[in-house]
């Protein structure tokens, strides 16, 4: 049983959620309320990680983060480390991979707020920021929470991108999903089975938790 790998997975999941909460709210709200030329293209771009094979995404990220890339060079000159095969590189990849999981539920939740509620807020003299904080986010909260839970659960399960961008470096990029693969190769069926069961339970709990919360929030609203 590789507890270190679970720690890495949780840290990766929490850090991804911490970045995608503000980013998802901003982008989701923007896409919900703005009409502009090329909106369909932007939405397609954000949805791409849903349908791309993880290895395709992993390949492009490896090229984009690598030593020869501009991003990789800037990172190396700032930190002295390489971006690929590091936790920070993995986090960046995880944020990109999870964009649709965070943005889409949040966008739907903002879209579901009736226009007259938003009009009332603006007529009452609330600034855009106050309306977001006091009206929109409380109403969109179930969708926001769903986005975050999906992001967290998906981060725990991501395999292909992690393997390509992260390698399998213990204490750095070996997540629980990768550790299970390693345990099987090491003929450690017991370790693999135990870790798989833990991941299964966590996923069930995460989804059950969102279902419960969104039912609560829905009840209050109605």
């Amino acid at each position: 049983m590789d507890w270190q790998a679970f720690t890495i997975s949780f840290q990766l999941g929490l850090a991804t959620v911490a970045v995608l909460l503000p980013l998802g709210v901003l982008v989701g709200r923007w896409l919900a309320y703005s009409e502009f030329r090329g909106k369909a293209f932007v939405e397609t771009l954000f949805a791409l990680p849903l349908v791309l094979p993880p290895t395709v995404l992993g390949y492009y990220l490896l090229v984009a983060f690598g030593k020869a890339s501009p991003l990789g060079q800037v990172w190396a000159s700032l930190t002295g480390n390489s971006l690929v095969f590091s936790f920070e590189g993995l986090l960046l990849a995880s944020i990109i991979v999870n964009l649709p999981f965070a943005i889409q539920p949040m966008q739907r939740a903002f879209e579901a707020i009736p226009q007259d509620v938003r009009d009332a807020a603006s007529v009452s003299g609330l600034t855009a920021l106050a309306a977001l904080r006091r009206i929109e986010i409380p109403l969109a909260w179930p969708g926001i929470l769903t986005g975050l839970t999906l992001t967290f659960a998906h981060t725990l399960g991501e395999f292909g991108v992690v393997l390509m961008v992260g390698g399998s470096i213990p204490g750095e990029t070996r997540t629980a999903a990768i550790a299970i693969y390693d345990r099987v190769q090491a003929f450690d069926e017991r370790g693999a089975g135990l870790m798989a069961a833990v991941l299964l339970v966590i996923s069930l709990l995460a989804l059950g938790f969102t279902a419960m919360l969104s039912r609560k929030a829905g009840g209050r609203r109605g």
Partner: protein
Amino acid sequence: MNRRVFLLSGVAGLASRAAVAQAHRPVRVACAADLKFAMDEVAEAFRRETGQAVEPVYGSSGNFRRQIAQGAPFEMFFSADESFVFALADERLTIDRGALYAIGRVVIAIPTGSPLKADPSLFDLGAALRDGRLGRFAIANPEHAPYGRAAEQALRHQGLWEAIRTRLVLGENVAQAAQFAMGGGAQGGIIAQSLALAPQLARLGSHALIPAEWHEPLRQRMALLRSATPTAHAFYDYVQSTPARALFHRYGFVLPGE
């Protein structure tokens, strides 16, 4: 409020990671997958003797060669094929051209209950191909795993390569090939002797040594990378010491100078 809790936990996660990175961390060593069980024992013996920790990470030598060129945080590289070490040395990523630490051998490994026989001449494998006894046969991917290349050369030597190609299941490295071969997914495979001799695998079936002349020698070379700490240097010396050589010997490796 919830937003703050989420943000704080994310920040706390990153901070705790930084703290762990600052603290004493074991020497990370990239190891060819054929070393899986042998190197665990060598690292454990080193820890008992010196109190310092070495953490072996296993994979295919070809992948490690690429990862190290990309800046993967290893201090030492044990390759199953010395050409990968020489390539990194030419790119000035290792401190020198390293040292030969072992010469590997391949075996045909057959799980208990398989219709195949552990026949070192591979005649039975050829017969099984013709009479339909063979379903799947596991080797490591010859494109980047040295043991996969040795397996391909041995199969070619016996004129079986073309016929067996559609039956092959390729492991990403030789440890995965061994898992495929002995874990019940295939009727057998050509894998590293060092893996077949490990108790975890030995109890699953039988194996037989394939003649060394049927493939290019698996000259395994190690080298320290530029980031190597004093502990890594000490481990480099330890691998060439008598106790470590005895351990490698037990796993069927031919040692330099023998």
